[in-house]
Every structure is written in C-alpha cells, then in structure tokens.
C-alpha cells in the first residue's frame, strides 16, 4: 500500500483551509453595508447590529476565520435566515437527493459510453462510429439546461410518459422516485456522457494502434481480449481522472437540473439561498461543495495509484 497520495492529501487540506478562509469573508462582496443590503431599508439599527454580529462582521478577518472554522468543526455552521434551521441540517437533508441524481447519472453515462467507445475502437470509421462521433460533437454544443428542456418536452409533454417534475424520496415510494428521476438523470447523463465518450473513444483508438497491441495480437488476442487487456486497464486511470473531475463539475450541473425538475437537492438549496441572500446557507454550501470536490480528488488519487502503478513514480 503506497502512501504516495499523502502529500497530495496534505495539499488538498491546505486548499480547503484557504477556501474556508475565503468563504467566511463572503459578506464583504456585498456592496456597501452588508447588513443593510441583507435586511433592507426597513430594518432597525439594532437588527442590523445583531446581523453584523452573527456574520462576524464586528470582528476582524482573522477572528472571523477562527470563529468560522471553529464552528465548522463543532457542527455549528450557522443558522439559515430563511428557515431558521441550522445550516448543516439543511445541507445534509438535501444530500440524498443530489447524491442519487449524481450517482445515477454517472452510471448511465458510463454504461452508455464504455461500450460505444469500445465499439468505435474496433470499427473506426464504420457507420456506428461515424454516427457516434458526429452525434457526440453535436451534443457537446447543447448546454445541459437546453437538453433538459428538450427532454421534458419530449417525454413529459409530447409522449406523456413521465411526470414533468417533482420528487419522492426513495424510501417512500421507490417506483415513483425512479420514474421521476429518469429525466433528470438522462439530462445530466447525456451531458457527461458526451464528454466521456469523446475522451474514451480517443483513448481506445489510440490504444489499439499502440505498439503493444501488435505483441498481443501475435500472442493470439481476440479483439475483445485486446480491448480489455490493452485499453480498458491502462486507460482506466484516465477515465477515473475524468470521472473525478466530472463529479465536481456535476455539482454545478445539479444547480440547473434540480431547478428544472424541482428536485430538493443541494443545487436547489443553493439556488433558493442565493435568491434569498441567505448568507449562512450560501457559505455552508460553498464550503460543503468544496469539501466534496477535494474528497473526491483524494479518493481518485488513491484509486489511481492502486490501479496504475506508473502514477506512483510520477511517470503519468
């Protein structure tokens, strides 16, 4: 078990600390007096003073940082302006929906991408391959929210197969939950699938052309064996890296998809918090999202170092 990833983990921790530092200063971005902006003209000075205290605006930057980080560790992430509930509770309650969305869409994206890419590698220039590469190219030009609208139009409005929006927790009614998840997952999955497909198709084709393919063919490898042995195993680390980044980018994507489909996840929480200028929630979400991205980065690094020994020597 190599610990090559440890220095990277340390670096990531440092990154998180910097992000926390920046996040707790977010109130500064507000033009003028933050308290006035947030509470409006009708507020009293007493209310504004109270708000300033909550936001730590009566402290200097360093003190604010310390209080903030201290709070983060003790689980006190502040209280939401709009709901009055603790920020951490709000965030955690939204995680299941978002997690389901992201995980399912990654599965769908990979399940479609990998076979298509392998097929393309074996039949470069063939009909399906050309269709796939043209299709991918066109699809990459369509932003996810447009895809979402089209998906809704097609499945909900025209065909009437699926309900247009809404969400039921899996624990309540699994079938309904999945039915409502089809379109959001499709939307997010298509967007990501297109990116994966372009990368994986390229990698797969390159692998088949690589010198070691010759050696394997002479040793009797069939196309399928070749693809697995020579392509999937070495390029799995590239794919994983992509998945790692994509998971992070997905978080942004969830903002759009969750809004479109009225899914009560982190994305939707962010959108409503921003709309209401609910600063504690905003800060909480930013920090939380960053933590997830960093965590996934570390996990990806670990997995890659197990699978692809080249990375441990810094060769990759």
């Amino acid at each position: 078990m190599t610990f090559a990833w440890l220095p990277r983990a340390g670096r990531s921790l440092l990154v998180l600390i910097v992000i926390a530092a920046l996040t707790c200063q977010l109130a500064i971005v507000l033009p003028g007096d933050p308290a006035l902006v947030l509470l409006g003209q009708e507020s009293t000075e007493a209310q504004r003073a109270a708000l300033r205290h909550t936001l730590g605006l009566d402290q200097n930057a360093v003190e604010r940082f310390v209080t903030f980080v201290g709070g983060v560790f003790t689980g006190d992430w502040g209280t939401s302006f709009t709901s009055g509930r603790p920020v951490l509770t709000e965030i955690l309650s939204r995680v299941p929906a978002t997690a389901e969305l992201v995980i399912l869409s990654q599965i769908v994206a990979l399940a479609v991408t990998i076979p298509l890419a392998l097929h393309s590698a074996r039949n470069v220039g063939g009909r399906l391959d050309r269709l796939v590469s043209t299709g991918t190219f066109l699809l990459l030009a369509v932003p996810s929210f447009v895809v979402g609208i089209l998906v809704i139009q097609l499945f909900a409005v025209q065909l009437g197969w699926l309900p247009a929006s809404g969400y039921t927790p899996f624990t309540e009614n699994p079938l309904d939950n999945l039915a409502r998840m089809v379109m959001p997952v499709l939307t997010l999955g298509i967007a990501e699938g297109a990116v994966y497909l372009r990368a994986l198709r390229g990698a797969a084709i390159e692998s088949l052309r690589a010198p070691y393919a010759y050696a394997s063919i002479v040793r009797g490898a069939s196309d399928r064996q070749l693809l697995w042995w020579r392509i999937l195993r070495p390029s799995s680390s590239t794919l994983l890296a992509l998945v790692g980044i994509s998971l992070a980018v997905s978080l942004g994507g969830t903002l759009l998809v969750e809004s479109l489909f009225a899914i009560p996840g982190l994305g939707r929480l962010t959108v409503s918090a921003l709309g209401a200028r609910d600063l504690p929630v905003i800060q909480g979400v930013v920090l939380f999202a960053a933590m997830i991205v960093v965590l996934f980065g570390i996990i990806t690094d670990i997995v890659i170092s197990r699978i692809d020994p080249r990375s441990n020597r810094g060769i990759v």
Partner: protein
Amino acid sequence: MALSELITPVRSAAPRARIPRVGVIVASCWLVVLAVAALAAVLGLTIDPLANDYATISQSPSLAHPFGTDNLGRDVFSRSLHGASASAVVALVTVVVGGGIGILLGVWAGLRRGIADAITGFLTDVTIALPSLIIVATIVTLAGPSLPTISLTIAAFAIPVFARLSRSATLSIATENHVIVARTLGASGWRVLTREVLPGVLPVMMPFVLTTLATAIVAEGALSFLGFGLRPPEPSWGGLIAEGRTQLALAPWVTGFPALLLCLTILSINVLGEHYREAKR
C-alpha cells in the same frame, strides 16, 4: 498526480471524420453574421428589445417579427440579438482578461520555477476545487449582477487553467535551443519572453482560447437561466430561454430561437476549434 494536474483539456487525438471545409466556412459565416447582427442591435437598428406592445402578444414569426413576439409583445429577434451581444462581451472579456492574466502567470511560473511555480500551482488547485458555477452565482448575486461583474467573475475562473496550460507549454519551450541560447547570451527576461517564448506558447493556446469562448458563453447562459445573470428585462440568452419556458405550449419560439442561437454559436466555435486542432497536426 495532484488535483491541479487533472485539469488538462481533453485532447481527442483519435482520427475523427475531418471537419469538411464546408463546415468551417459555414461556422465562420455564422459567427460573423451573428456578430454583425448583434452589433446592429446594440446600435439600435432593431426594434427596442424592452418595448412592450400589448397589441402583438405571442405572435408567431412573421416578416415584422422574424422570431415572433413573447407574451408581453416584445420582439424576440431583437431580444435574442441583444442577448448575443451580452454573451459576446462576457466571452471576450473572459478570454482577453482571463486568458491574458492566465498566460502571463503561467509563462512566468514556467520560466522562473521555484516559488512562482508553487504559488501558481497552489492557486490553480484552490480555484479548481471551488465549484465554479456556485461561486460565480454567489459573487454575482451578492455584488449585483451587472455585465462587468459577470464577465470578470467568469474570467477569474478561466485564469488558472490558462496558467496551467501556458506553464506546460513554457516548460517544453524553455528547453528548446533558441531559448537557452537567448538566456545564455544575457537577453533580458522581457526579451526572452516576447521573442522566444511567447511566439511558441501562444499558438498552442489557440484551441483552448476557442474552447474558453464557448465555455464562457455557456456559463453566462446557465447563470442567466437560473436567474443570477442580467436581471430581466435585460435580455440574455439564458434569461430568454427561462422566460420562454412558461410559454412553451403557446409560443415555443420564445425559447426556441434563443436556444437555437446558443447551440449554433457553440457548435460553430467548436467546429473552428476542431479545425484548428486538425490543421496543426
């Protein structure tokens, strides 16, 4: 492999069907036509995009209103073009400011190594770890959604990737003979930069410049779709698409045309980018 090293643009070195020459011409024409039309709109040559006209609500496309009108009687064509100009501004600022700063930072880090390199790398890591859409939305919402704010915030997120790319390019160029010779002969840092390094780095960055243009346009679109971009009634592509959603059944053109413009523009930029990449090979 640090987090920061994961961010390299996906190069499809695979043989794809070459972009037919026709495609490149069409793509370029589209972008030129769009730019001219947007300029015309901004100069006031089209119907006022903010003018409500209750006499002509939700009309389908016609000669007077090529893209139809929305539920307040506003001309969708003009609104779309104004939206185009907003997207164009964001895209250009992102590339010029973000790219400019990013490239300079990257080249500096690549030449100087040491502390400069470490700092740049670290800053890149920090920025990559930030969920960009969320942060941009946050800053824009808190600071007030104006075109400059939106452009500069998105530009800020373009800086690290430009820096990383130009750093790699610089590193490989710095080992080339002409650079080593120049440095040995005592050429000043500035001279080495402008005459030996930049001419090598800039062409390599071209495809990414195009990609960034497209990304910036999508980002602005997403932002305004969610309502965090330019405040209505200011037209922006994302905003128009969002507004039109409620009218989809009766007046699909309100969403349809802006969406079409958006997709065609991104497609054209991608076509050009791909063509450039192929031409270099």
